């Protein structure tokens, strides 16, 4: 409990820095006015819109106004939707979250067996194949993999729907797309973590007890290998959410990613700020959860 409170308190300066980064990122930009009006708009129309949006104030005043609003949970209104930005972002959160979760699931399902296998069969043909596969998985950009999967599994084989949401089947391709790069990273990580653990003396002890190799690996090895993996998984949250930006576009998934890309393109600052903030918060929370999991998995910490 004390641990939780302390960690939550530690988040505050981080959030403050994030607010500054986000503000600078977004406000040092040009103005959204030229994007909101058609190509044929006149200068007078532009000036008028700028004034009405409060974009003529000095930067620091804009920041303090922004910070004040932020504390009260007011991220401003979306230019595009004329709605509170926070609401728009939160509305999309479940879709992105679902996708991210499914992807993590896919990544875990792929990487754990493969990572363990390649650690056990170190330097063998299988290991090399898995390693090569991991490199390939990492080298393939999301969008390319997504399009390929659609062409193969939807257009050719007609197994999964092409895009959109609605059923569990809709999750499969985007989750694989997004999960692959993470799986690649995690496979490598689990492999090296497992290798290190398998070299530990308590593994030798376990073997000297006459345990089946499978028990040695899965019980004594994996449980320990999981500890660093959990932390890295949490660090992958940022990558994962970053990946949704692209995956959602490819699969026209109505999540935060699509909202964000369009908001950036249209300079819908309020939405960009709100979304970035919410994403950062999500990442921080997931890291916090990972810390908790870590404490659960490792009795050395739990019982201290």
């Amino acid at each position, binding site marked *: 409990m004390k641990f939780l409170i302390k960690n939550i308190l530690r988040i505050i300066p981080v959030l403050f820095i994030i607010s500054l980064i986000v503000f600078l990122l977004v406000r040092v930009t040009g103005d959204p006015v*030229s994007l909101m009006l058609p*190509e044929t708009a*006149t200068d007078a129309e532009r000036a*008028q819109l700028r004034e009405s949006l409060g974009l003529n104030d000095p930067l620091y005043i804009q920041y303090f106004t922004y910070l004040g609003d932020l504390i009260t949970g007011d991220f401003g209104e979306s230019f*595009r939707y004329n709605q509170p930005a926070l609401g728009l972002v939160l509305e*999309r959160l479940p879709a992105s979250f679902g996708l991210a979760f499914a992807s993590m699931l896919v990544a875990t399902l792929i990487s754990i067996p493969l990572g363990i296998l390649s650690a056990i069969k170190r330097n063998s*043909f299988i290991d*090399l194949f898995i390693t090569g596969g991991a490199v390939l998985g990492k080298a393939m950009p999301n969008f390319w993999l997504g399009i390929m999967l659609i062409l193969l599994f*939807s257009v*050719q084989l007609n197994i999964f729907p092409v895009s959109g949401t609605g059923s569990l089947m809709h999750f499969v391709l985007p989750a694989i797309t997004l999960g692959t790069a993470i799986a690649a990273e995690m496979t490598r990580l689990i492999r090296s973590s497992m290798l290190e653990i398998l070299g530990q003396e308590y593994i030798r002890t376990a073997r000297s007890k006459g345990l089946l190799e499978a028990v040695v690996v899965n019980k004594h090895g994996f449980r320990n290998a999981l500890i660093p993996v959990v932390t890295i998984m949490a660090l992958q949250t940022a990558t994962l959410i970053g990946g949704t930006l692209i995956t959602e576009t490819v699969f026209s998934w109505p999540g935060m990613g699509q909202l964000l890309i369009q908001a950036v393109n249209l300079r819908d600052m309020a939405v960009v700020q709100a979304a970035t903030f919410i994403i950062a918060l999500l990442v921080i929370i997931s890291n916090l959860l990972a810390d908790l999991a870590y404490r659960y998995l490792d009795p050395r910490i739990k019982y201290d």
Partner: protein
Amino acid sequence: MKKLLTFGLLFVLVFSLVACSSNSSTSGDEGSVEKKTEDDKELVIATGADMVTFDIHDHNTTSTEAIHVNMFNYLVKRGEDGFDPDLAESWENVDDNTWKFKLREGVKFHNGEELTADDVKFTLERVANDNKLLEHGNYSQIKEVKVINDLEFEIITHQPEPALLNRLSRLGSGILPSKYIEEEGWDKFLENPVGTGPYKFVEWKKDDRVVIEANSDYFGEAPKWNKVTFRAIPEDSTRVSELLTGGVDIATNLPPSDWERVKDNEATEVAQGPTQRVMMLVLRQTEGHATSDPKVREAIDLAIDKQAILDSLMEGSGTVTRTRVTPGNTGANEDLYGKTLYDPEKAKQLLKEAGYGDGLELKLSAPNGRYLKDKESAELIQAMLGEVGIDLKLEFLEWSSFADKYASKSFDDMFLIGYGNSMFDAALALDRLSSKQAEGETDYNNPEVDKLLEEAMSNMNAEERAKQYQKAQEIIAEERPQIYLYQLDAVYGVNKGLNFEPRLDEMLYVDDITVK
């Protein structure tokens, strides 16, 4: 050795993945789509971008209006020749500044309220007076709407407004339910919009879909579909894949590279038609820029083979033009339409005459990804200008940066842009070339053109007004402050079971789409 073999194997794997998808295009047996049939009463249309808002006054997006037209009605409709009645049964021009309208009787909003002249007043005065609305500029000419009785009203303009009917036949004039909005508030309306059109709102899942259903109380012909879904699918190849697998019935903005695939597929076909968008190079005539020399401008025009661009990048679709005011617009100069100039030899000659025989370096800024094949077009133009001795430096800008520079008028010699025209009137199309508007951008200044444009602006004699615009277009075509390249086509992928005619205004009137 074993290891190398593994890598070999891995690559084979990747290649085979690609190969199976590429083989498919030749087999013509892609996807699993079946032809649309009579008993299927649901229609799915995929668009490239999601609808922006239900506030019809606060957006300027064609693709959003394309959906709205099924839910809202305008006062008048643009027809084959002039304007047809829609919500307004009849109208007359009382004097230069006053128009009188009579509404159709018995029109009901989706929530059951009757349409009255008060609704018209509410709608038009909102957009005419609220300068925060994006469409305000196109309706600020309206001074007030005078309600005469439930069905009759007068529109009074500040100045004589020859293009009023054009304005009333487009997105800002979709009539809104004044009572509903006043009672429930805008937020409620935006969540649950109500119009008079043939289809009613069901749901809008942002960046995913807009669903509408048949309005059984529609005053006109009964709606043909039970339910229509507009899906937003931004990634081109995904949209095509959805079409090929039958996930959608119509896909807009079909990328040229996929036309073959769509055509080859048994159950899908390509439909295309002209749009209001004309691609052009805008040239700076400011002192100090080589482009201020008319000979250089002409040389640039002559050096670009516009038809070749259309052929190689857009599979031949699109129409070359020497004017921006294309047929279907008031004041179009059809003599300049469908025509193009291409004479690289003469271009070289002109350059020599202008004193650039040894070569000339120019800079072109172009957006990347905003218009169909904009980047590739610019690259081809670069190659073509290279042929006549112009070394063209390209600057590509992602749209938001391009828009910034556009707004600040800070482009160098030239920029590539594609203007649309939702007003269907030459006024909007040529306005930017008046010396006042052109200052700092093209710095084009031709008193004759200025005069023609100014007079036409408030000339209530339609025929004479058209003449003035046509004359202006001729001068512009000769002087080339803008070099027109071609009019873009809209290309749709369509299920073969459907009758679908692309419209010039790119609206998607779903009741015009029928099962064969």
